[in-house]
C-alpha cells in the first residue's frame, strides 16, 4: 500500500485523546498524534462534556483531517475512566494508546511501540515517560531505571518493581486486553487500580527505553491556598488511598498476595510522597487531618516495607503512625532540597535517632549526619522574614542537633548573601535553639557591580571557628509564603521560598537602563567571541612567530592543560627559581582553576595573551601537550616532562588514536615533533613511551622531577593534608586514586570500589581520601562524607601520597610514583580483562608485576586492609622488583639534573656535571606493539 492511500481503512493504532475544558491545548495533543511517524493512526478525541470551546476546536480538527474523530459525552464524569472507556469503545484499530489533552506523544511513539508489540507478542508495551517543563523547555525522564533495558517481562511477578510505572498513558495495548480490563468510572486515580489489574492480567509485557510520552508541566504556579482547594486536596488524598486499597484487593483477587509488599512500596514512594512533599506548606489543621486519614492504611503495611524507605521518609511514616502531626511538618521539610537536619537528635551506642527519644523506627544513622567533619557539618536554620521598604529583616532560629557548635567554642556566625556578610549574635533560647536577628538593606547591595546582575542567590548562615574554617547552611522559610517583590536601584528583587523545603532565595532582575546596557554588553561579548575564535587565534599566532623572535628569558609553563601548579613542570620551575635563573616563568591556567601560589604570573589558557606568550616564550615546559595545532617557533625549545609512567597503553597505541580516522594521529605526530627533550623517569618508560609516540629526540633520564619530594619526604605535607581535609587524627589514611575509563570519562564510572560497603566495615579505623582522575567527575554521596573525603581539588597529589598510609588504585600511573614511598599498595582490578583487551590496552600484566594484592571485589579489599601488614609483607619481593623496574632512577635530584641539562645551567659546586647530558633515545628494535 502506498502512502497516498493512508486515508483510513483500518488504522494500525488508535490514540484516545481525552479532554475536558482544554480547548487551548487540545490541538497540540492532536497534532502530536497526526504528526506520528506511523501515518496510519486515528485520533479519537473524547470530550468529557466540556463547557468551553473544546467542541468547536475538536470538530475543526476532525474537519481538517479525516484521521480525527470526535466523541462527546453527555455528562461530565469528573475523572478519566469514563472517557477512556468511551474512547476504547470507539477505537477501530487493534492497538490503542491514551493521551491527555495537555500532553504530547513523541514522534515515533506509535510506530516504535507497535513494532515492539508485533515483535514480542506482548499484551502491552510500556515506554519511558518524561516530564516536559514548559518553562525551560527541557524534559527529564521519570524513573529511568525502570526503562533502562529493552526487554520482555513474563508477567509482573518477574519484575514487581514495575508497579512504579502505573501510568495508563505511556503504553500501547492490544484492544482486547482493554476490553477485558476497563477503567473504573467511580473514582479518581482509576489508573492506579487499572494498572494493578493490567499487570495482573498481562501474561507478558515489553519495556522500551526511549521516551514515548511527554508529560507537560506548566510553569510553576503559586501553591494552592484557598479553602476549597485545601479540602479538594484532602479529598484527593482520600481518593488515592481508596485507589490503593482497591489495587491491593485486585492483587489479592488474582492470587498475587506475595506482590503486596511491592505495591505498598510503590504507594510509599510515589503516592504518599506527593502529600509529604507539599506538607511543610500546609496549616496544622490540614496536617492533622491528613495524618488521621493516612494512618489506618499505613498501619496495614508491613513494617519491613517501611524500613526500605530512606531514613527521613521512614521517620515521616512513623510520625503518621504515632499521630504526631506537628513533628511530621518538621520532618517532611527535610525530605527535599537541602535535606535539612532534624531540630533535635539523640545519639546512643553509636546510633543516631530523630527527635529526643532513641526508638528504632526513628533511626537515622544511615544519613551519617552526626559524624561529618566540621566544614561539612549540618545545622538547621529556620527563619521568619519580614520586608519593610527595601530592608529585609530575618529572625533566624538555629538548631544544632549534633552538638557541632558546642564542640567548637569560640565560633562566630554571620549571614552571607553573595559577597555580603552581616554579623549574627545568636542568643540561646530555653528550648536549646539559638535565635539571632539580621537586617539587610537590599538597596545597598550591588551584586554584579556597575552593570548589575540577573540571577539569584541563597543567603546562608556561616559559622566560623577560631582557626578560620567555616561551615554554612541555607535558611528555611515558610514554603507557603508569597514571594515579596520590591524595587531597588536598577533592579527588581524577588524574595521567595524556593521548593518544597522553602529555601530562602533572593533573585535580581535588571531593570531600565541597566537592562538595556546589559543587552549592549552581550552584543559586545558576542562580537568579541566571534573575533577571537580559535581559527583566528591560530592564524594570528602563525603570523606572529614568523616575525617575532622568541625571548630566551621567558618560559611558558603548563601542567595538566592548565589545571594547576603541580607535576613535573612545578618542580622544574621551583628548581629554576632556586637557582635564580634569569628566566621569567609564566604559568598557563585553565578557566575556573585556582590553587596557584601567590606571586606566580598566570595567563589564561587559549586567551590572546596566552597565544602571545606561546609566540614569545623561548622555553615551553609542559606535561601533557601544549595546544596541538600550534607549531613551535623555530628557536623555541620545548621540554616535554610527561605526567606518568605505567602499564597503560600510550601514544599511538592509546584508544584516542586507534579509532578509524587518521586525523588525530597526524595531529599527534606533528605535536610530538615539536618536543626538543623528553623527561624519562625510567628505562622501562623509555622502552615503551618513546617508540609508542614515535619520538626521536633526546631523552633526559634522571628520574621524575615531581618524585624528588617523595624521595626526600616532606614532614609538613601530612599536617597540611590532615588539616585541609579534616582527617581525624586516629584514622589511617587510604588514598584511593583510580584512573579514568576511556569510554566513560566524566561519568564517575572509575570509582568502582563499593564505598558504602567499605564505610560499613572500615570507618572505625580508616578514612578514604578519594582522588579521581582529572578527566573524571565524582560526587561523594552525602551519607558517605563522614568516611570519604573528596580530594579532587586538592592542589598537589604529592602531599596526598606523603600523608597517606596506603594506596588503592587500579591501573593509574600513580602506582609508579607511590612505589618511591615504599608504602603498601592495593589494586582493585575487577575489570582487568575488559580494560586490558578492549577499554584501554596495556603493556604489562599487572597481576604478574603488581607490588600488592590484585583484588576483584570490595569484600576482598576489606579483608586485605584489615590484615594490611601481613599482606604487604608477603609482597615485599614483588614490591622491590616493581621499584627496580620503575623507580631505579629516582635519586631525588631529577629536578636539578633536568634543569642543568635542558636550560644549560651549571651544577652547584660539589657535584659534577652529568657525563652524558642528553643521550639519543634507546630504540627498542621493535616493540611488538601492545597486545
Amino acid at each position, binding site marked *: 500500500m502506498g502512502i497516498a492511500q493512508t486515508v483510513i481503512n483500518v488504522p494500525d493504532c488508535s490514540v484516545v485523546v481525552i479532554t475536558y475544558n482544554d480547548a487551548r491545548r487540545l490541538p497540540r495533543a492532536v497534532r502530536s498524534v497526526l504528526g506520528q511517524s506511523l501515518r496510519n493512526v486515528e485520533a479519537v478525541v473524547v470530550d468529557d462534556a466540556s463547557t468551553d470551546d473544546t467542541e468547536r476546536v475538536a470538530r475543526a480538527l476532525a474537519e481538517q483531517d479525516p484521521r480525527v474523530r470526535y466523541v462527546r459525552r453527555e455528562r461530565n464524569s469528573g475523572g478519566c475512566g469514563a472517557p477512556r472507556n468511551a474512547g476504547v469503545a470507539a477505537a477501530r484499530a487493534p492497538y490503542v494508546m491514551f493521551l491527555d489533552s495537555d500532553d504530547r506523544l513523541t514522534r515515533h511513539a506509535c510506530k516504535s511501540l507497535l513494532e515492539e508489540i508485533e515483535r514480542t507478542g506482548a499484551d502491552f508495551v510500556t515506554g519511558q515517560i518524561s516530564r516536559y517543563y514548559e518553562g525551560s523547555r527541557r524534559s527529564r525522564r521519570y524513573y529511568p531505571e525502570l526503562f533502562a533495558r529493552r526487554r520482555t517481562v513474563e508477567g509482573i511477578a518477574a519484575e514487581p518493581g514495575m508497579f512504579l510505572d502505573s501510568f495508563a498513558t505511556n503504553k500501547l495495548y492490544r484492544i482486547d486486553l482493554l476490553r477485558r480490563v476497563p477503567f473504573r468510572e467511580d473514582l479518581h486515580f482509576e489508573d492506579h487500580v487499572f494498572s494493578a489489574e493490567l499487570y495482573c492480567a498481562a501474561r507478558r509485557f515489553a519495556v522500551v527505553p526511549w521516551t514515548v510520552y511527554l508529560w507537560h508541566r506548566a510553569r510553576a504556579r503559586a501553591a494552592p491556598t484557598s479553602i476549597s482547594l485545601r479540602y479538594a486536596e484532602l479529598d484527593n488524598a482520600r481518593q488515592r488511598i481508596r485507589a490503593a486499597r482497591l489495587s491491593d484487593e485486585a492483587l489479592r483477587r488474582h492470587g498475587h498476595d506475595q506482590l503486596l509488599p511491592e505495591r505498598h512500596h510503590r504507594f510509599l514512594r510515589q503516592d504518599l510522597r506527593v502529600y509529604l512533599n507539599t506538607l511543610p506548606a500546609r496549616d496544622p489543621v490540614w496536617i492533622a487531618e491528613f495524618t488521621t486519614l493516612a494512618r489506618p492504611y499505613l498501619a496495614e503495611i508491613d513494617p519491613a516495607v517501611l524500613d526500605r524507605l530512606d531514613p527521613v521518609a521512614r521517620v515521616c511514616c512513623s510520625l503518621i503512625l504515632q499521630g504526631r502531626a506537628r513533628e511530621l511538618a518538621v520532618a517532611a521539610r527535610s525530605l527535599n532540597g537541602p535535606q535539612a537536619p532534624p531540630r533535635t537528635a539523640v545519639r546512643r551506642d553509636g546510633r543516631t535517632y530523630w527527635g529526643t527519644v532513641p526508638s528504632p523506627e526513628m533511626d537515622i544513622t544511615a544519613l551519617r549526619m552526626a559524624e561529618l567533619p566540621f566544614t561539612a557539618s549540618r545545622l538547621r536554620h529556620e527563619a521568619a522574614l519580614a520586608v519593610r521598604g527595601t530592608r529585609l529583616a530575618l529572625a533566624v532560629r538555629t538548631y544544632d542537633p549534633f552538638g557541632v557548635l558546642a564542640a567548637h567554642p569560640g565560633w562566630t556566625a554571620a549571614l552571607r548573601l553573595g559577597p555580603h556578610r552581616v554579623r549574627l549574635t545568636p542568643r540561646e533560647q530555653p528550648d536549646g535553639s539559638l535565635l539571632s536577628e539580621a537586617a539587610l538593606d537590599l538597596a545597598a547591595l550591588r551584586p554584579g557591580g556597575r552593570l548589575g546582575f540577573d540571577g539569584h542567590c541563597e543567603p546562608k548562615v556561616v559559622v566560623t571557628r577560631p582557626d578560620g574554617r567555616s561551615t554554612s547552611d541555607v535558611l528555611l522559610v515558610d514554603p507557603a509564603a508569597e514571594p515579596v517583590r520590591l524595587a531597588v536601584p536598577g533592579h527588581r528583587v524577588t524574595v521567595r521560598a524556593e521548593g518544597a523545603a522553602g529555601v530562602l532565595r533572593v533573585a535580581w532582575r535588571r531593570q531600565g537602563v541597566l537592562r538595556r546596557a546589559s543587552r549592549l554588553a552581550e552584543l559586545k561579548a558576542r562580537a568579541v567571541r566571534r573575533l577571537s575564535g580559535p581559527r583566528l587565534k591560530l592564524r594570528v599566532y602563525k603570523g606572529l612567530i614568523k616575525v617575532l623572535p622568541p625571548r630566551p628569558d621567558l618560559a611558558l609553563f603548563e601542567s595538566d592543560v592548565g589545571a594547576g601548579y603541580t607535576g613535573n613542570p612545578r618542580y622544574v620551575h621551583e628548581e629554576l627559581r632556586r637557582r635564580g635563573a634569569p628566566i621569567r616563568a609564566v604559568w598557563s591556567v585553565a578557566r575556573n582553576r585556582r590553587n596557584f601560589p601567590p606571586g606566580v604570573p598566570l595567563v589564561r589558557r587559549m586567551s590572546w595573551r596566552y597565544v602571545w606568550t606561546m609566540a614569545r616564550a623561548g622555553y615551553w615546559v609542559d606535561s601533557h601537550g601544549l595546544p596541538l595545532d600550534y607549531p613551535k617557533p623555530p628557536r623555541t625549545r620545548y621540554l616535554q616532562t610527561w605526567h606518568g609512567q605505567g602499564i597503560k597503553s600510550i601514544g599511538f597505541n592509546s584508544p584516542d588514536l586507534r579509532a*578509524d580516522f587518521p586525523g588525530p594521529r597526524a595531529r599527534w605526530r606533528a605535536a610530538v615533533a615539536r618536543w626538543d627533550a623528553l623527561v624519562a623517569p625510567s628505562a622501562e618508560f623509555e622502552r615503551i613511551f618513546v617508540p609508542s609516540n614515535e619520538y626521536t629526540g633526546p631523552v633526559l633520564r634522571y628520574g621524575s622531577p615531581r618524585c624528588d619530594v617523595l624521595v626526600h619526604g616532606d614532614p609538613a605535607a601530612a599536617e597540611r593534608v590532615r588539616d585541609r581535609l579534616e582527617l581525624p587524627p586516629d584514622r589511617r589514611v587510604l588514598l584511593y586514586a583510580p584512573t579514568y575509563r576511556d569510554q566513560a570519562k566524566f561519568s564517575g564510572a572509575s570509582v568502582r570500589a563499593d564505598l558504602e560497603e567499605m564505610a560499613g566495615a572500615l570507618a572505625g579505623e580508616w578514612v578514604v581520601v578519594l582522588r579521581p582522575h582529572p578527566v573524571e567527575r565524582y560526587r561523594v554521596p552525602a551519607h558517605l562524607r563522614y568516611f570519604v573525603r573528596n580530594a579532587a581539588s586538592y592542589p598537589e597529589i604529592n602531599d596526598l601520597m606523603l600523608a597517606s598510609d596506603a594506596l588503592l588504585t587500579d591501573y593509574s600511573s600513580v602506582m609508579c610514583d607511590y612505589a618511591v614511598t615504599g608504602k603498601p599498595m592495593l589494586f582493585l582490578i575487577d575489570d582487568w580483562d575488559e580494560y586490558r583487551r578492549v577499554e584501554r590496552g596495556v*603493556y604489562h600484566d599487572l597481576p604478574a608485576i603488581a607490588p600488592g594484592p590484585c583484588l576483584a571485589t570490595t569484600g576482598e579489599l576489606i579483608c586485605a586492609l584489615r590484615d594490611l601488614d601481613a599482606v604487604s609483607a608477603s609482597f615485599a619481593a614483588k614490591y622491590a622488583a616493581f621499584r627496580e623496574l620503575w623507580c631505579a632512577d629516582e635519586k631525588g635530584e631529577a629536578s636539578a639534573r633536568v634543569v642543568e641539562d635542558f636550560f644549560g645551567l651549571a651544577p652547584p659546586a660539589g657535584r659534577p656535571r652529568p657525563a652524558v647530558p642528553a643521550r639519543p633515545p634507546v630504540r627498542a628494535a621493535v616493540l*611488538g606493539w601492545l*597486545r
Partner: protein
Amino acid sequence: MSGPAGRSPARSTRRAGGGGRPAHTVVFACLDADTLGGVQRVTHTVAQGLAERGHDVHVIGLHRAARPFRYVERPAYHRHVVHRTPAGPLSRLGRRRERRRLAALLDRLGPGFAVLSSPSVVTRIRALIPRHLLAIGQYHGSYRHARGSWHLRAVSGHYGRLEKAVFVSEDDAWSFSEHARLPNTWSIPNPLPSWPSRTSDLTARRVLGIGRLEGVKRFDRLISAFALACGAGEPPGRAGGRARGDPPGSGPPGDGAGGWELHLIGEGAEEERLRAHARACGVADRVVFRGAVPAAEMAREYLGGSVLGLSSEHEGLPLVVAEAASYGVPAVAFDVSGGVRSLVSDRETGLLVPPADVDAFAAALAELMSPADGGDAAERRRRLGAAARVRAEAFRPERVLDRWEELFEHVIR
C-alpha cells in the same frame, strides 16, 4: 490537498517492470561520494541496484573527492556534487551556497526518501531536507566505535528525529535503541558486489588478511597470532599478553603448520612496521605483503585462500568476511561488533574470539590450519566455509535491495 495525503511525501508511481512495489525518488547524500572507501562503495552499489529496479536515484557528494574513484561503470542513477572543494570546514559563504544548491536540487525531485550516510552528513544537512523527502540516517560503524568517539553523541542527538536510523546489523540497532534510546532503529546489511558461482577448494595453505595496512586493522595482531599458530615461538613485546584466566596450553601447536603463509592484501602507512613485526615474530618468510589488488582480481585471491583472519580494532560490517564467505572461505575474527557477529557465528560459520585476545585468535587459527587435537583441519574448513556461504546469502545484492524497499514501505506505513 489536506489531510494525510497532503503530508504524504512519496507520490508513488507503479514501476514499468510491474514488480508490484512502487517506485520512489531515493537520494543518497555522502560527505564525498567519490572517494575510495567502504561507505561510498556500499552507497554506489545500492544506488545502482535501486536504479535498476526503477527508482529515481540520485547520489549527492557534498564535496568533490580529491582523487575521484568510479565505482559503477554505467551508472543508472544521477550524480551531483555540491562543493568543488574537498571535504573540510565551510565558510559562512560556503554554507549559504550549500543551502541554495541543495534546495535547488532537492526541490525539483519527486517525493521519496533522502538517505544521509553518516553522522557528519546528518548533522550538516538534516535541516535542509525538504518535507517531500523523508530523511533516513545511516550509520556504518559499530555501537562500540560510536561509543569511543563523537559519533555516539551525534547519533543519539540527531538520528531520533529522522524517519529511520539504519545500522548495519541487528545487534548494533539494538544497542543504539537501548543505550542511545533511539526509537526508530532499523538494520540493513551492506551488499556484496556480486555472488560467485565457484568456491575455494580450501586446500591452499594460505591465510588471508585483507584491508588497508593501517593501525585500526591491527594486522600486527594477525601476524602475532599467525606466528603463534605456526609455532614460531612467542613474539616479542608480549609482556601484557597473558593474564589470569587465559586458558593454559593455548600456545603454539608445534610443527605441522608447515607451508602455511599469511597473505596481506592492501597497502598503507603501516607496511614497514608490519614487515619489521613479522621479522621479529620469526615469520618474515611466511608473511607475504601483496600490496593492493584490483577488485576484478580479488576473486582469484579468495579462491586461493583457505582461512580469512579479521583482526581489526573496530569494524562496522566487514564486507571482506562476507566476500570470503561467498567463496566458501571461513573466517577467524575478533568479536568487535554486531556486524562481525552477523557474519561469523562461532563454530558455525567461522571462529569468533574475544576482542584483542591474541592467544585465543592463534588457537582458533591453529584449529583451521593444523589442529592440536589431531582433527581434520581441512574438513573443518570445508564445513565452516559451506555454512559461511549459506550465511552470506543474506548479503547478496538482491536481498539487500529487498530490505531497502521493505524499509521504504515501513517508513510510509
